[in-house]
């Protein structure tokens, strides 16, 4: 069954799109990742224009982040003040990202931007995950606990001006680092179609030194805020958000996420983490292949 996407201006098999939403939703429920970094390249492989894929994936991220954020909110594990400060930075980051997006798209370089930013990102994430799961599996086989990474003390961050009290995080720090983190991650969101949780979470733990119990909830609120701002800006400036595509992805995503969360409670995660790492590396390899191998037709057609 084909369905026409009014903004992407193409007909797609809606079952395939629903399947992608379900699959990525399942992984995000299982591992607590947003999944934008997998969904955007999958949509591009299917033939959705890169710009539409990047701009529409954020709706899927907003939906899956919402159910997570509600669960965290019930546990009072959200620092709204911190999320607000990061979102303020995010507002400017999104503006910059959407502006860059428009320039790259007009120049016909959106495919290149997606490939060039995703290959190193997926390569690094996939590599780290692969390394960690192999180490954990080996440690489990030997019967000892995996080594923990301890936060580094960043004295210079605590010497910055404009300090504010973040009661929920029990921190009294400068607002500059959260503003900068919010700005950078939101810029990446707009250009790459990712939530950026995998950068936000370590940055909040290791750079801001927030207590781990509020990190997940706060990052989810920040991701939702950025997804809302980015979607509105992409729709207003670049006409790149496809509401039909978003609806199918979101339906698949929220259902998949529930199954993923349940499966995660029962399954032992390490073998699955290894599989996810291999999947991420495979997507990176496929994108790299597209950059290096001579295309079958060097000419392509745009516009109409």
């Amino acid at each position, binding site marked *: 069954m084909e369905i026409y996407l009014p903004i992407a201006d193409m007909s797609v098999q809606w079952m395939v799109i629903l399947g992608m939403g379900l699959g990525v939703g399942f992984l995000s429920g299982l591992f607590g990742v947003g999944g934008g970094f997998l969904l955007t390249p999958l949509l591009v492989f299917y033939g959705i224009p890169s710009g539409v894929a990047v701009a529409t994936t*954020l709706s*899927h991220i907003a939906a899956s982040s919402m159910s997570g954020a509600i669960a965290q909110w019930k546990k009072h594990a959200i620092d709204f003040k911190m999320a607000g400060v990061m979102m303020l930075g995010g507002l400017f980051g999104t503006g910059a990202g959407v502006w860059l997006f428009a320039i790259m798209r007009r120049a016909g370089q959106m495919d290149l931007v997606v490939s060039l930013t995703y290959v190193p990102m997926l390569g690094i994430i996939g590599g780290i995950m692969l390394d960690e799961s192999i180490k954990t599996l080996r440690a489990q086989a030997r019967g000892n606990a995996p080594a923990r990474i301890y936060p580094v003390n960043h004295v210079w961050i605590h010497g910055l001006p404009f300090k504010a009290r973040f009661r929920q995080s029990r921190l009294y720090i400068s607002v500059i680092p959260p503003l900068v983190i919010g700005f950078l991650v939101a810029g990446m969101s707009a250009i790459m179609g990712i939530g950026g949780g995998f950068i936000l979470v370590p940055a909040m733990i290791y750079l801001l030194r927030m207590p781990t119990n509020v990190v997940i909830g706060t990052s989810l609120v920040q991701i939702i805020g950025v997804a809302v701002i980015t979607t*509105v800006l992409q729709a207003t400036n670049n006409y790149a958000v496809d509401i039909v595509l978003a609806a199918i992805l979101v339906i698949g995503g929220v259902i998949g996420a529930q199954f993923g969360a349940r499966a995660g409670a029962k399954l032992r995660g390490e073998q699955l983490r290894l599989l996810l790492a291999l999947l991420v590396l495979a997507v990176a390899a496929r994108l790299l292949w597209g950059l290096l191998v001579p295309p079958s037709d060097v000419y392509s057609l745009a516009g109409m």
Partner: protein
Amino acid sequence: MRRFLLLACLMAAAPVQAEELVSGVSQDLIQITSNYTGSDIVVFGAVEGQNQNQGGNHGPKDVVVVVRGPDADLTVRRRDRVAGIWINHDAADLSGMPSYYFLASTRPLPAIAPAPILARYGIGVQSLRPDTVHSHHDYEPFRQAALRHLSQDHLYSEVPGGVEFLSDTLFRAHVPVPAGVMRGQYNVEVFLFRGSAVISAQSTPLFIDQTGLERRLYNFAHNQGFDYGLATVLMAIAMGWISSLLFRRPV
């Protein structure tokens, strides 16, 4: 534009008693809906009057049916290898090319008339040229690439033998209208050839419109981008929220 003037002159100048075309289209409005997977229209007509056999107008009669879509601005990009990777490196903007072009004829085009005559009436995919070009180099390879891509997408096609004579005077041609055609005014042009010259021609408009939900969504997205974006993301958030109400976690 020049093509239309020529067509108009021809229609005005045709002598009354000479052979003349009368043609029609099975549908003058096509509505594209979400489950539209393409359809066919039929162009039919008759050749009326007598062959006057004068001024070199000998030979068999040929009918050519051309359907042109609204003009489009095309950007053709060429990938080149830069620092080891393939990137879009060069581009040409071709404006005023039809977004859709279908041709059916009684015989292969070279048998009907020489290329310059065909080109004058915009007959044949190879005769299609942009009105204006923005390119740093010779745009011909880019034009050829555009013709190739549009042919692959079934937006440009030529069917020699696609016009069939049902009797000595009645003819008919099937015109496929694939999914993914542009909205707007299409022109159905029918040419009657006798001895390599056009002796009669007729042009009929045909409208293709998108209807239903997708049209309204497209308009919504382009006219009220802010509200549209907000609606999309709020829908997503609402679904996330509803799902967490529906499937309460066992934990």
